[in-house]
């Protein structure tokens, strides 16, 4: 691959930029506490929180950078930040 003039490329390149590799802490849901308020989905700066058919959410760990915003904002403390293991 060579660099195009000015680095112009097809859209959607962030898909191959798996920013999840930068993570130190990973968020984990406790579905017993979740009230499906969607705040975590709305506030994730990396769009790494996805809705499921049952109304709960899931993380896309390929792109979650572990910033902890979702855990901080969750009104029921349904998200734990857990240290990543090697």
């Amino acid at each position, binding site marked *: 691959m060579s*660099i195009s003039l*000015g*680095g*112009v490329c097809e*859209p*959607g390149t*962030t898909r191959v930029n798996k920013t999840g590799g930068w993570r130190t802490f990973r968020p984990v849901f406790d579905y017993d506490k979740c009230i499906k308020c969607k705040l975590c989905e709305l506030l994730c700066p990396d769009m790494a929180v996805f809705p499921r058919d049952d109304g709960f959410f899931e993380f896309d760990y390929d792109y979650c950078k572990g910033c902890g915003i979702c855990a901080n904002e969750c009104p029921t403390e349904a998200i734990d930040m857990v240290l990543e293991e090697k």
Partner: protein
Amino acid sequence: MTVIRTLDKDKMSVAEGSYAVAHAVKICRPNVISAYPITPQTHIVEDLSQFMADGEISNCEYITVESEFSALSALVGSAAAGARCYSATTSQGLELMHEVLFNMSGMRLPVVMTIANRAVSAPINIWNDHQDSISQRDTGWIQMYAEDLQESSDMTAQAYKVAEDKDVMMPAMTCMDGFILSHVYEPLVLLEQDLVDEYLPPYEPEYTLDPKNPLTFGAFADPTAYTEFRYLQQQAMDNALPKIEEAANEFYEIFGRYYGGLIDEYETEDADIILMAMGSLVGTIRDVVDKLRAKGIKVGLLKVRTFRPFPAEAIRNAIKGARVVVALDKNISLGLNEGALFTETKASLYNTKIDVPIVGRMIGHGGRDIPVKTIEDIVEEAKGIISSGINTESKYADLKEDLL
């Protein structure tokens, strides 16, 4: 070849420097002009907005914005959409653009912008020196400095020619001294549409923003590729060196006017003392050279027309035979106590076999007048350097000790 003006008297008019530049921009057929007025650049964009209001520029959008940051940002988008773009700014306005200057060059968008050079704050000062553009020398913009009004106007077309060259594709600043050139009236030839059309083909971008064929400009580059982007930008700057010469020669063929390409030499061939400078100061030195040559003093002038890319080789060749070189700078690198032209010329001699004494003299900051007498004193001092060596490597030549 030295400065050549074959000015057709029938075509000549008297115009203000800003008007001449605005007219040149119009004749270059821009598609988007975006600007925020700031002294002493204001007249350029005022004239352009008047042309727009009078319907004299077709196929063009004029965007009035709330700051210089927005002015250049709007042009990043416009240039990416394939438009030939123009802006003008100065001083604090240029410094406010700093971040966008990098984006523009990194995205390889060949925008042309006139800088009506002015000192920077604090203290507030609206008069001319070169601190504003010199402070932006590492942003990846081509930088050229004009000696007079005719050159300021003609440089606009030349800048588009170089910037839009497929081997270059870098934005360009054409620098004219604020007030000294921007607000002065001189007899000149305003650029003619038919000749510019022959000289400057329409801009054909490699890529364009188009909803039907979406593309990403200025995307993320992690450490595996960022270095290569910088490398390619430097390569484009290297390519610009011969292209600037070509653009000047081709301009001469069509318009009959030549100002030098990267540099211009005046009476340097047998000169013991060579003074080097950029911008309108060159004109003053030209007169001093004439005056002193008449008295038998072997002094010459090296006009540095292109500062980025830095024409190290051309400068080395021009000064290698001198017995002393004085670089005159209207800027200072604080903490180094040197002007940029001096530092870079001195650096370009290191690791070569050329051993010519060179000193830097800073002069004319904040619009302080540079009378002929000051230049003559500098030459007098240079004579002393030939006989007894360098005393002070770099200093202000026109410091008022009584104010300190």
